[in-house]
């Protein structure tokens, strides 16, 4: 008898792949059936992701923190490819499934028919992300990165049009370049350590001969650059806002997770390879991550301020969120990493919701803020000049009210204003940065200042864009179709749920931070055998 529980970990990869492959056998006209298939598939993925997350949260049979390891082809690590579901990867799985479900729902209103084979590409994208976060093998990671990126190229161009094609050209060129770096990095690491399995590499880091260490570090640096390009860190991420803004809304929403995959890998490898046990490599790259992260946050914040359209601002918000996690990864403080992860989950969901809202708002109306616009409309000679006192408010249609509410919630998370999850995450970061005895490092203060500044910029930018999109709007209210309603509502509800369940979420994130800080457990779980 098959024990399905054993194979649950591979479901997030195999299921979408099989569903997508089966869909290719169906004709284009049968889009309803395809929509049904992908919807069911994503529901199953959500279920699988949360089951794995739950397992990671409550721990294994021993009740303690552990990682579920799956050896593909029954070839044990480090020889075969292994999948590892630990706290971090299941968090990413759950986030991906949730966001993807939202995007898919949204697309059912009309976007899934804007070009051929949307559903297959969409599921393959999800498969790529799932594979990338689950795999414990560096080269297999490359393969899944490519799956994810290849599908993202297709999806970015979905719906066609000049804007998308132009953005797509740059996006493809840059990611191809980054993929080449990826290969150089992986092979260089193999050339030096003779290992591809991440746990295996981590196991050998401390014993790399001194004369080989520079080469190993070069490999890691090149690899790091490849991931930072994908995570859209400054100065490698200039492609992101334009590409995400050009993508169709459901695609942009699910893209919010793509850059986080880059962040995920950085976090995974930095904690695994350069932890305290890494000998001469301990702490390698932390300062760079810190600086690149802070620079990314500042650049993203400036980008948000300079944005004229909501989807553009949402793109920069994705950058800010990546930058925040990168910078925190650079501090190598487990509690701060926990906060950053919680923040990342919330901000990613919120960014997804913002992309969807932006698209609905843009319908039929140009809500762009013109660059010539002053920050405010009137001239301030006398604020009480008007005698137009007896005002009558306007009736808001339910759709606008709904969108407005959703926007406010998503914006609160993005700005990290209380009481929502973004706030809880940032607060945890602050508290962690300020914790510990003795004099606080300058980096902590700088980071707090940078993060506060970015919140402020986000506040100004989103208020402005929100006012322009909702309050200044003239003409007919935007029409929201019911799948879109469900999608936006669902994502925002997830943000809310994350905020309401902050206690559980923060505990999970906090323990994840601790788990990452003790890579020995991961290495032991992988190399000690598994399913």
């Amino acid at each position, binding site marked *: 008898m*098959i024990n399905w529980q054993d*194979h649950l970990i*591979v479901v997030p990869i*195999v299921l979408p*792949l*099989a569903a*997508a492959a089966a*869909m*290719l*056998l169906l004709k284009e006209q049968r889009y309803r059936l395809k929509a049904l298939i992908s919807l069911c598939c994503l529901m199953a993925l959500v279920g699988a992701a949360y089951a794995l997350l739950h397992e990671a949260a409550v721990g294994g049979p021993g009740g303690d923190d552990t990682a579920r390891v799956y050896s*593909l*082809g*029954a070839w044990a690590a480090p020889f075969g490819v292994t999948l590892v579901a630990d706290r971090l990867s299941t968090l990413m799985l759950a986030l991906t499934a949730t966001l993807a479900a939202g995007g898919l729902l949204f697309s059912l209103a009309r976007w899934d028919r804007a070009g051929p084979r949307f559903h297959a590409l969409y599921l*393959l994208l999800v498969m790529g992300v799932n594979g990338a976060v689950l795999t414990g093998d560096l080269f*297999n990671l490359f*393969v899944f990165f*490519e799956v994810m990126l*290849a599908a993202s*190229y297709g999806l970015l*161009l979905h719906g066609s049009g000049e804007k998308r094609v132009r953005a797509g050209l740059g996006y493809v060129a*840059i990611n191809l*370049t980054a993929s080449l770096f990826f290969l150089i990095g992986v092979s260089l690491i193999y050339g030096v350590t*003779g*290992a591809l399995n991440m746990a295996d590499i981590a196991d050998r880091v401390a014993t790399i*001969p*001194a*004369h*080989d260490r*520079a*080469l190993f570090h070069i490999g890691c*640096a*090149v690899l790091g*650059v490849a991931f930072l390009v994908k995570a859209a860190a400054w*100065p490698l991420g200039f492609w992101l806002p334009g590409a995400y803004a050009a993508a169709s809304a459901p695609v942009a929403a699910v893209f919010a997770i793509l850059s986080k995959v880059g962040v995920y890998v950085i976090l995974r490898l930095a904690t695994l390879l350069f932890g305290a046990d890494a000998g001469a490599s301990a702490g390698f790259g932390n300062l760079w991550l810190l600086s690149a992260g802070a620079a990314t946050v500042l*650049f993203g*914040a400036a980008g*948000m*301020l300079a944005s004229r359209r909501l989807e553009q601002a949402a793109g920069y918000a994705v950058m800010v969120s990546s930058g925040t996690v990168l910078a925190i990864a650079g501090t190598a403080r487990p509690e701060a990493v926990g906060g950053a992860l919680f923040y990342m989950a919330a901000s990613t969901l919120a960014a997804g919701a913002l992309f969807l809202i932006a698209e609905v708002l843009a319908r039929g109306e140009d809500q762009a803020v013109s*660059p010539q616009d*002053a920050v*405010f409309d*009137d001239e*301030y000679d006398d*604020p*009480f000049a008007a005698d137009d*006192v007896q*005002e009558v*408010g*306007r009736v808001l249609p339910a759709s606008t009210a709904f969108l407005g509410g959703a926007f406010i919630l998503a914006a609160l998370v993005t700005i990290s204003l209380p009481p929502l999850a973004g706030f809880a995450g940032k*607060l945890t970061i*602050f*508290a962690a940065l*300020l914790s510990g005895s003795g004099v606080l490092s300058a980096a902590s203060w700088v980071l707090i200042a940078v993060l*506060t500044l970015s919140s*402020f910029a986000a506040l*100004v930018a989103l208020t402005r864009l929100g006012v322009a999109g*909702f*309050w*200044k709007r003239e003409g007919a209210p935007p029409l929201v179709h019911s799948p879109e309603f469900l999608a936006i509502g669902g994502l925002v509800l997830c943000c809310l749920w994350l905020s309401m369940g902050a206690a559980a979420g*923060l505990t999970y994130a906090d323990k994840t931070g601790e788990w990452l800080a003790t890579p020995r457990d991961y290495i032991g779980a992988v190399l000690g055998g598994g399913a």
Partner: protein
Amino acid sequence: MPHALLLLVPFGAPFAAAVLAIFLPSRARNLAAGLAWSASLIGLICLAFLFPAVATGEPVRWSTPWMPTLGVNFTLRLDGLAWLFAVLVQGIGALVVLYARYYMSADDPVPRFFAFLLAFMGAMTGMVMAGDLIQLAAFWELTSLFSFLLIGYWHHNAAARDGARMALTVTAAGGLCLLAGVVVLGRIAGSFDLDVVLASGDAIKNSPYYLTALILILAGALTKSAQFPFHFWLPRAMAAPTPVSAYLHSATMVKAGVFLMIRLWPVLAGTDAWYVIVGSAGMATLLFGAWSAVFQNDLKGLLAYSTISHLGLITLLLGLGSPLAAVAAIFHTVNHATFKASLFMAAGVIDHETGTRDMRRLSGLRRSMPVTAALAIVAAAAMAGVPLLNGFLSKEMFLAEAVAHTGGRHLNLALPVLATVASLLSVLYSVRFIHQTFFGPEPVDLPKTPHEPPRWMRFPIEVLVGLCIIVGVLPAVTIGPVLAVAVRSVLGPEVPYYSLALWHGFNLPLLMSAVALIGGVALYKVLGPRINRSDRPWVVGRFNGARAYDRVMRGFNLAAEWIVRRLGASRQQARLRAIILTCMLAALLASGLAGLGFDEAGLTVQRPGLGFTLLWVVGGACAVTAAWQAKYHRLAAVVLVGGVGLVSCLTFVWFSAPDLATTQMLVEIVTTVLLLLGLRWLPKRLPGLTTVQEAKARRRRLTDLAIATAAGAGTALIAFAVMTRPSGSPLAKYFLDHAYSEGGGRNVVNVLLVDFRAFDTLGEITVLGIVGLTIWALLRRFRPAADSLGETEQKRIQNDSDDRREDRAVGDTLSETMLIPRVVMRWLFPFIILLALYLFLRGHDLPGGGFAAGITLSIAFILQYMASGARWVEERLRIRPLVWIGGGLLIAVLAGAASWLFGYPFLTSWFRYVDLPLVGKTPLASALVFDAGVALLVVGATVLMLVAIAHQSLRKSRAAVADEEAA
């Protein structure tokens, strides 16, 4: 316990009612108002029940974990101060709700308004009842948010939008600082719990982070309570409906800042830094607000600046740092709330009934609305500090404190004088407010005929004015007990002696009061007309905080745009350059600049052979020339890249990689065809047609050349460093050891691909499939550029020439040219299929495999397309690439999933030798099924890629045919 649970009601009721209100129909104003009113009344009743418990001096608490990892709890904590503020929030809230019911137009969709108002009330209550610093900051930001929604309620009005945004920007930014501040404070105190924090005053004041915490917290408090120079948002917020102004600017929003300073007064006040910052801000605000209020012509404007001034007064009192001053501050907070709320409502009534708020147009309203006039006069008198009214009492305490602080510190001497001046100004604007509105001749040319407002619209004003009088006359009986509890909750057991008596005898403060009263009236007599003629305050009128704010915000914007432009890159080349340079820099830094360890490692170099060197002379020459030719001679570049491919294929041959050589060769062929297919759609490029400035371009090219050279040198150096080191990968050993015994194949590379690392292969073919899909999707909507439309030049010329000759038909040149190639290519087809089969079957033991077989098969197809044209082939051989791709993927996945049936992980392979009749012992491996999936997919995807591009020219000519038919 019931007490603790009772706490939840005043906090929760407004939120619950807000949620209900948002779902009410837009015309249900009575229902909405009733809901709001009941919520606040219920809250008030609960608070009343709670007073005895609070009065014992022990805070009533209710707590539940919120963010346990941070030790942050959600705690409702009601002590005297919180009780006082909660009552103010809910009491004045109830009155404002009643007032708003009549103020708002019947056509206004008020449920939304009441929902926001209730939510704001709840946030305010939550803030004052917060028992945790983080919770306090959280509700603080919520009040900013809901005030934003309230101020912008009439959002079709630009002033409302801007006022709302400005209020939010300033107060929420302050809130962000506050948040950082309380985190620092919490770090010093070791907990965010208010009780713990309040108990660690000494630790806080002695901490090295005290100043940081203080500045951050004050940044929150001072912006929120509109202290100079952050006061400017408050007048702009007057664009809100008047009930909102009455609520926000009397008892709630602006008092949040004051509340925070009182709340943390025990642990933050008393230091020099506190004195300087809070005291100066308060003093500056007091004077600036009062002076500006004098010159306002709008009723609400006057009240707005008066509010600023009074907030300055309270802040100044808190800044003084003495317990008595703190008592005065608390007392004045309450008093200001009552008279200012009533004045705002009165202004609203006037506006509502006359249609204007401009004091220069208003006049003599005491005749048409005598009751309102009487109420307003009393309230204004309280504001001016006239005896027998509550404002007088707290102002006397203020003046007394000003006098008491004369000794000691630097700006102290000025304190009594400035306090008197401020009081005088307060009298002046109060007199102006009353005199110009209610006295004088009958008003002319008002938008509406003035009359008294509805009974219940006036009721809230009556209540508040009544309170002003009762408290003013009988302070000890009315406000005394409440104030005592509140003061004790702030100051603890060491409450100083203070008296709430009306009469303290003839003393300096009384004299100052008298001077202020008489001087104010006198000054109004003298300056009144001149004030009316000036449209901005004298002296300080040039300073416009809002404009300064706007300039700052514009500066932010410009800076942001500058950053995005200068530190970002909008052009692709710049982006790629940044990425490559960053990568090189990262590699350089990662090497530690200490070399690659050549000395220690000990080189093991194989002597370069002549043959291999010659080979790479060829390769290098091809690469460099390809780079050189790629712009103007694209075909040459394709040819030369083919040369590079051949050289790398031979390199694989040279160094023991037969599989790689085979695959590289096949891919090489397909890539060449692919590039050529694309070349057809690119524009003609003639040398010397560049429009860019040549010098600039040359400089850029030189830079790029330097980058490229450095990148090449670096890569070469790294490759050399690794190649010359001894290897000893345990992986290699394991795979060589187990390939045959456990993988069932001799070709270790193939066993790696279909067994050990089959998961990579599964991903790889997925990529291929996705790319096929994407190309197909893209090309379905392909639209060639104008200059690539129609037939190629060659075809046109050759067809024309066919057309001209009588013995030939159009297309003969093509068919004659292809005569020989067609025969060969067609008969080669079965042989290539055979080759594909051969490569497929032997892959597990010898070079070959599913991928090579697939590519070979697709070349067979491509050859037919090239020989006979797409239409000819497709009439005979229907290839459905998407089905091949999907089928291939499915087969591969199912081959992998089959192992589940036997309880093994995904992709576990199975092999066995089977004795077949005739054939004999034959290896059967599940990996072969997997590889078949690979081959299928590769055929599908490769054919799809090439054919989809090729189809474009067909489609266009079909379209052209259709055009011709139409014409």
